[in-house]
């Protein structure tokens, strides 16, 4: 287990480096004068020159990259070209909103998706199964942003039950988190069903039955526990989908999170901010996947005790 943990932690390093390279290339690939681009359209000539020196833009590429990496490690992401505030400050202000929404969404998705998948697997080809599988199919085919809009039409415009956007108390969370959760929930339900069905087909389930165990015990203690292990990994991947979805959902619901920030920044060509937000998303995703991988190793005795 220790060996696995160390290996996993070490494997992050190339990925982080890769991200930094990607971001660096991004800057280099932009047309025009990078210093001007970073400073933004509203900056003064002094600001532009300051940035030019700060980033060493007149120096060779590897020096620039070195400086860039150095700044990254010190969490200096520059200033927003739009608001002139530090990028880290803007992100930090909005990060909790995105994280709380994502957590709510994943929670809902697991709460509804996993049991649905289990029931579906245990009673295959019944009307219940068809309901779950069709629902899940619809869920993964539906564009997240369209669902959000339709929910707004229904619950805010027609029924006036819930607010159409903005943040605040729990009623503001309901529609966005449901929207965000929809795709993930459907995916998790499908994965759970597949994993459960495969687990139920395993030989050791027959052995468990041959011992005279009650069917419920066989399903939960034997089949389910085995089926959940691969699902844990899937949930980590799903978080990635959530991050992607959050960009769209936050736009639909005017949610003040990082997702909306990245969209606004792209429209405004605020490149320092774009860099910063992409970095944050990347970091979050890596962190979640790392946690999930370690959790997986902990739960599966085949890895834990070797």
């Amino acid at each position: 287990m220790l060996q696995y943990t160390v290996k996993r932690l070490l494997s992050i390093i190339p990925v982080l480096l890769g991200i930094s390279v990607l971001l660096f290339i991004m800057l280099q690939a932009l047309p025009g004068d990078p210093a001007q681009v970073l400073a933004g359209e509203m900056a003064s000539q002094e600001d532009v020159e300051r940035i030019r020196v700060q980033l060493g833009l007149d120096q060779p590429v590897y020096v620039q990259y070195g400086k860039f990496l150095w700044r990254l490690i010190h969490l200096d992401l520059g200033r927003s070209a739009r608001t002139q505030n530090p990028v880290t400050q803007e992100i930090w202000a909005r990060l909790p909103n995105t994280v709380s929404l994502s957590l709510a969404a994943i929670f809902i998705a697991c709460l509804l998706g996993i049991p649905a998948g289990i029931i579906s697997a245990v009673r295959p080809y019944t009307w219940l199964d068809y309901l779950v599988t069709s629902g899940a199919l619809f869920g993964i085919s539906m564009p997240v942003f369209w669902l959000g809009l339709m929910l707004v039409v229904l619950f805010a415009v027609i029924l006036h039950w819930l607010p159409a956007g903005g943040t605040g108390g729990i009623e503001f969370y309901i529609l966005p988190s449901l929207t965000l959760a929809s795709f993930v929930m459907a995916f998790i339900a499908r994965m759970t069903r597949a994993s459960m069905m495969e687990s139920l087909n395993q030989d050791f389930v027959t052995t468990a039955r041959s011992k005279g165990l009650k069917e419920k015990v066989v399903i939960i203690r034997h089949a389910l526990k085995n089926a959940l292990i691969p699902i844990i990994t899937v949930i980590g991947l799903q978080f990635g989908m959530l991050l992607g979805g959050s960009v769209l959902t936050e736009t639909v619901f005017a949610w003040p999170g990082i997702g909306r920030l990245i969209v606004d920044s792209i429209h405004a060509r605020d490149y320092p901010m774009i860099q910063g937000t992409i970095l944050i998303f990347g970091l979050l995703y890596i962190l979640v996947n790392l946690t999930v991988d370690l959790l997986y190793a902990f739960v599966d005795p085949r890895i834990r005790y070797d």
Partner: protein
Amino acid sequence: MTEAPAQACPAPVRSGDGLWKRRWARLRRNKAALFGGAIILLYLVIALLAPFLHLGDPAKPNLIKALERPSVEYLLGTDELGRSILSRIVHGSRISLLIALGVVSLGLVVGVPVGLISGYYGGKIDFVIQRLTDMVLAFPGFLLALALVAIIGVGLENTVISIGISMIPIYIRLVRAQSLAVREQVYVEAARAVGTRDPKILLRHILPNVMVPIIVQTSLGMGMAILFAAGLGFLGIGVQPPQAEWGAMLGSGRSYLFNAPHVATFPGIAIFLAVLGFNLLGDGLRDALDPRVKV
């Protein structure tokens, strides 16, 4: 001689039927998959016939008729510039299918060979390729496409390229995993023992056995491409107006949600049905080409 304990149906031995004939028969039996295939066929037909259907110019504004409800004249109503939504959706199908094909082609053309090489040769090449794929996969697909669009710009071609680049690592991983498994098979060892050269082994032995997940992924990938493209369009950073892309239509229709909801509703249904079709077909292909013992 081993006997597998029969838990459900013992599979009868059949000889004479071709492998692909049996697979096709299984697919035909799957009503859902056929339904999905029918939807896609419908879209394909509509897309090809679009210029001949005389539904009105999807790009020309006609402000007098802006935001009209669905009527006999305009079956799906008009948008904020007075254009027929039906016409725009039909022309949008050309764009969406084009994007889907472009993205998947990119993934196949780059991803499959790289995956084959990575999986078959292993060693240093595999290590390097895997680390590179790790880096790309460090970002969730949609975000990667988003980031790429931020760099290379908006528009139809750039949309295809950005989403295509996110699709490539998926194919690489898929093909690599299968290649690794196939490489260990005895018939590959036999081929090598007889002196078959590598490219021939790759082409004639490894690739055909890797086809199944590739086919399934292609169908599912096309659906995913349409969803991603619509997402980018919705945010205004995908296909640009006046081109009629479904997601972009949704994006601009958003402002009129309260007084003219039909502008946003119909393009969404179009996206939904297209993706549903690809997903149904993909699932059906998976079941038909690689059946597991069903309970």
